[in-house]
């Protein structure tokens, strides 16, 4: 019996999702739509045909990587809210290397472009780690402020030095075709980025589970003082965590440019860094689980446009529903299974039953 209760608690994210979609249905109904047809159009548009799936996978590449970035930081006890900025820096450096470094063999050039993006994101994240470790400045505020710097920097480069001549709005030249990430579903935009994201999710899971680095990171996240006494260099781990987390964000931006956009556009990331936060919490900070939650969230986002086309409901309703989802999922974190309490409750009941059974017949 207690195991059933524990399972119910473990599924709290699922209950939160049900609640959120219920509230979302209410919102749709109030604004004059039919929730059932909206949700079915959404699901159909996202998951039920070849084109829908490919659209979902396109969005999943940055969203999954952003989710992994947030998970990594939170496991280390930090909150990286700067993934959006790291995505932009990754995109900026990957596209710069792709456009301006010449004379390299294609494969080497591609690897270099990806590494440049990862490194740029990593350094951008590490700024917050350094300031946290050395000067004690709250990493949350630093990463949030750095987002705006990065977004505006990319807009500057895409609309200034890197802008293609005669372009109607800020974007750069197209990168050489050899550097496009391979397409994984023929005839669609779904590119290798999502596969690499899944691979990295597994790598991160293994790393956090069974490596010294992962153990130190987890320890710092759970109890920095204990980590210090156990001989972990806490400051170093904080810097490393933010660097690695930023790297994942940088990769998200890099893959977005090399796999999908093929140019540096201004405002090229539609808040993927913040979707990563939603993914991380739905997955309860488990990298493997985040593959599932990222797929789900990406589906909602890519199905939104199909839904708008099918039934004419504003696609922004999905952003509103996702907002409700994150609140419900966040609230569900508070409901932690406490075995002692439940065990006490069950034993009290058993005692009551026993007492009833032991009573003489006439009272029945």
């Amino acid at each position: 019996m207690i195991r059933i209760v524990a399972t119910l608690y473990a599924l709290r994210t699922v209950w939160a999702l049900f609640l959120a979609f219920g509230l979302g249905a209410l919102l749709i109904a109030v604004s004059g739509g039919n929730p059932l047809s909206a949700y079915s159009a959404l699901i159909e548009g996202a998951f039920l045909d070849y084109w829908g799936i490919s659209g979902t996978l396109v969005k999943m590449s940055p969203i999954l990587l952003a989710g992994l970035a947030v998970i990594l930081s939170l496991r280390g006890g930090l909150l990286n809210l700067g993934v959006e900025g790291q995505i932009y820096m990754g995109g900026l450096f990957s596209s710069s290397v792709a456009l301006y470094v010449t004379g390299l063999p294609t494969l080497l050039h591609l690897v270099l472009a990806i590494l440049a993006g990862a490194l740029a994101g990593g350094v951008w994240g590490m700024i917050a780690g350094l300031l946290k470790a050395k000067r004690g400045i709250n990493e949350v505020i630093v990463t949030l402020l750095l987002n705006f710097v990065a977004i505006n920097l990319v807009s500057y480069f895409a609309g200034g030095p890197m802008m293609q001549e005669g372009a109607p709005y800020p974007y750069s030249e197209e990168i050489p075709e050899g550097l496009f990430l391979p397409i994984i579903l023929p005839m669609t935009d779904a590119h290798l980025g999502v596969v690499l994201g899944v691979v990295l999710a597994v790598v991160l899971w293994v790393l956090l589970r069974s490596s010294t680095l992962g153990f130190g990171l987890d320890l710092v996240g759970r109890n920095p003082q204990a980590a210090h006494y156990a001989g972990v260099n806490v400051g170093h781990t904080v810097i490393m965590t933010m660097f690695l987390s930023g790297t994942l964000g940088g990769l998200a931006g890099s893959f977005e440019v090399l796999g999908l956009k093929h140019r540096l556009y201004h405002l090229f990331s539609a808040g993927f860094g913040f979707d990563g936060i939603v993914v991380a919490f739905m997955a309860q900070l488990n990298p493997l689980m985040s593959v599932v939650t990222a797929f789900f969230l990406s589906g909602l986002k890519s199905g939104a446009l199909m839904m708008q086309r099918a039934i004419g409901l504003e696609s922004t309703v999905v952003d509103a529903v996702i907002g409700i989802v994150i609140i419900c999922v966040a609230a569900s974190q508070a409901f932690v299974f406490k075995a002692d309490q439940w065990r006490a409750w069950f034993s009290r009941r058993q005692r009551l039953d026993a007492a009833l059974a032991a009573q003489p017949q006439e009272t029945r």
Partner: protein
Amino acid sequence: MDLAFLTDFLASSLRLSIPLVFAAIGVVWAERSGVFNIAIEGCILGGAFGAAIGTWWFGDPLGGLLMALVVAGLLGLLLGGLAVGLGIHQLVAGIAINLLVSGMTAYLARQILGASATAPLPGFGVWPIPLLSALPFVGPILFIQGPLAYLAYLAVPLAWWLLYRTPWGLLLRAAGDQPMAVDTAGVDVQRLRYVSVIGSSMLGGLGGAYIVLSQVHVFTENMSAGKGFIALGAVILGRWNPLGAAIACLAFGMADATQLRLQFGSPDIPYQLFSTLPFIAALVALVLMSGKVHAPAAVGKKFERSGK
């Protein structure tokens, strides 16, 4: 640099800092009681949204102001429920609310305002203060402003007085440093924090209302544009003191006014380069002023009574 230019520059710096001042006082209030309020960004946006639909609905900026306070107050209640009531990670609760507001306002603005979204809304005009506005130099800077700006002038010293000169302020500060002591004194910490978070959010809403009703007169998606985060920086720079935070907000307002002038002055350089200036200013200030910072000791920590 001539006097007219300087007057103009300082007046616009002040105008740009008003939303930051409201938000920063709000953040001071919440964090002094022991709760992080990074949802302040969402409260500004929610306030702006409320101001726009309220004004559109009632045809009067006062209606807008009321709706701004209602929307932001509800957001505060939500943050209180999540962060104080349920005790989940306060920063996570805050960012969750920011995401909710961003999605909700974008959708609801399209649903409610629809085609009239771009039409300028009536707002509060400028209310010059008799006599004072005639003063040379300071008159045009300080005393030819909208009513909400005057409210901000009053809010800063009022917040300082409440926080440092009243028994209630002492309790509030204690709730952020030593909640156990407040509890021992027989005061309900949770309720104190609820009230603070709701009030804090309503101040953020006032900041958003100022942007819509006194500055731009329309609602656009995500128009808070990081102002809440800059206010959070200002609070750290001001050492969680309303006066210090307001001074930091003025400095950031100046940075913003500077970048706007640079934008107009050099149209051939993409303006985004200058848009980074307020954010870089905030970051640099945080780095330069770091080291001696002491946040309220219990901020971010869930309060649980012992011995239950």
